[in-house]
């Protein structure tokens, strides 16, 4: 129950003390940062010399910047593969686990294991799997008589990186969907059985509509994660010169801002990234409203 204590006298002081860290965090950490990042994006600043006003030059330069272009399209391609794959696979895993088969506890732990493991450490393992010479995958392919694949080269890295990221994200989605499945009332299915519903009809007309809120939540969350993905990409695709075979926006921000200390440039890219996330979230919410109204 929502309690509604009205603070009296000294309690007002406690209220302030308890909220102070959060208020600071909101003012400085979140909204202050947005404002600061926006301001910095209109400056040139290398942190050694005083910042210089730069107008829109940091933004105007972006479309002509080859690295930014690469990063921009890589990020979109990555999200376009990563989001549907993660949502659909974790949905299927949850549907399978919800059949209450023997070994369900083991399966749940197994699918969740990658989600709790450090992407840096597991990323190194994936570099071993993907390695061009004597890598695990290529050894298997050549043993079967195929030609080795350059898994982490420019042309293939996108797919290799998506696989590693999806592998690491299935567990989280699975838990969300399992919680959603378990909250569907039993009697829905009993009524369907009485009517002689076939399994696919139960899935299509009961399970999936009932899971719509979980699917919406999971899609938004996975999309936000997709645009912020960094660890696996850094470990798997970094090249000797500090660039990447598959730079994303986050990688590009990291490189401009914290390797080359071009703060204005990095801030402008961060603003672009945030704008994309905000627009997509807005679109999702509109779609949910539309579907919610017809359902």
């Amino acid at each position: 129950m929502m309690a509604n204590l009205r603070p009296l006298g000294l309690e007002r002081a406690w209220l302030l003390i308890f909220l102070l860290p959060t208020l600071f965090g909101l003012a400085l950490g979140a909204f202050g940062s947005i404002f600061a990042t926006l301001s910095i994006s209109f400056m040139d600043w290398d942190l050694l010399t005083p910042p210089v006003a730069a107008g829109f030059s940091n933004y105007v330069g972006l479309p002509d910047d080859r690295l930014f272009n690469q990063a921009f399209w890589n990020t979109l391609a990555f999200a376009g593969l990563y989001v549907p794959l993660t949502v659909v696979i974790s949905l299927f895993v949850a549907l399978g686990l919800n059949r209450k088969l023997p070994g369900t506890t083991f399966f749940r732990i197994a699918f969740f294991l990658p989600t709790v493991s450090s992407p840096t450490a597991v990323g190194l393992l994936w570099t071993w799997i993907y390695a061009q010479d004597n890598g695990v995958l290529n050894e298997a392919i050549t043993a079967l008589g195929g030609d080795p694949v350059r898994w982490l080269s420019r042309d293939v890295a996108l797919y290799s990186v998506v696989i590693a990221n999806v592998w690491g994200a299935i567990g989280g989605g699975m838990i969300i969907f399992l919680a959603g499945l378990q909250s569907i009332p039993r009697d829905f299915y009993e009524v369907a059985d009485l009517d002689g519903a076939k399994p696919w009809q139960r899935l299509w007309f009961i399970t999936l509509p009932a899971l719509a809120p979980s699917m919406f939540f999971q899609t938004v969350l996975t999309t936000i994660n997709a645009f912020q993905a960094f660890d696996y990409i850094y470990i798997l695709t970094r090249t000797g010169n500090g660039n990447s075979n598959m730079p994303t926006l986050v990688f590009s921000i990291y490189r401009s801002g914290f390797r080359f200390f071009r703060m204005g440039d990095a801030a402008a890219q961060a603003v672009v990234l945030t704008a994309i996330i905000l627009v997509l979230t807005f679109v999702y919410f509109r779609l949910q409203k539309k579907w919610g109204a017809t359902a």
Partner: protein
Amino acid sequence: MNRTADKRRFWGDIAAFAALTLGALCMVGPFVWMISTSLKPIAEQYDMRLIPQTMTLENYPRLVDIMPIHLQLLNSFIIAGISTFGQLLTCSMAGFIFAVVRFPFRNVLFVLLLITLMVPAQVTVIPQFIVFRFLGLYGTQAPLYLPAFLGGAFGTFLMRQYFLTIPSELAEAARIDGASLARIFFTIYLPLAKPALAAFAIFAFMFSWNDLFQALIYLPSNMEQTTVTVGLALFQTQYAGQWPLMMAGSLLAVAPIILVFFFAQKYFMGGIAMSGLK
């Protein structure tokens, strides 16, 4: 029920079981390979047998000789520990106020807090970096745990949702007996919220322990000061192709969280499920 439905259900179960087994192998297999490789002598690293022909623990001391990974593990542990404490304290305090006390602008403030969930870390990190540099804290561990003491949307939301399930009569009765807000929080609400605190603590610790981006920014090169994730990333560039050493390091970095996970898996999964509830 009729026999065709039972039969269909049976074959469906078989198919699901087979698919889940295959999937689980893909999930666990890489970890088994990690352990196996870490136990192989370097000379036999390209021997693709799952059970090493010669089993050895020599990679672990060799790794410590090359890189102070024991210090890095300790650094990660300290940073994650302090961050977790900061998050638990500040988020549960704010969650308590949002759940229990009525004050002006409560809903506006709460919505503002939730909006910050959508602000990517890459936006906050640029000004944060400049501030910490200005304060002379660049190159120290402080930037990795100080922000944890400024609350956070995820934790505050999680704790608030849990505090809402606690009957408000408890707080009201205590208040009539003259207990202060702080007393009500520390003696009634916190002890009752142990499951939520445990779930959130595990998450906060895991996020901090697994973080690479922030650590890479603030502690990019000092091998003794940095975290195990940065250590591994640096190791990767310097000792490429020495897979048994690398896998030994990776195993040391994932083992603590996996161990906690095995013993507290219901809190892990509970935390995720809780965050998904409306």
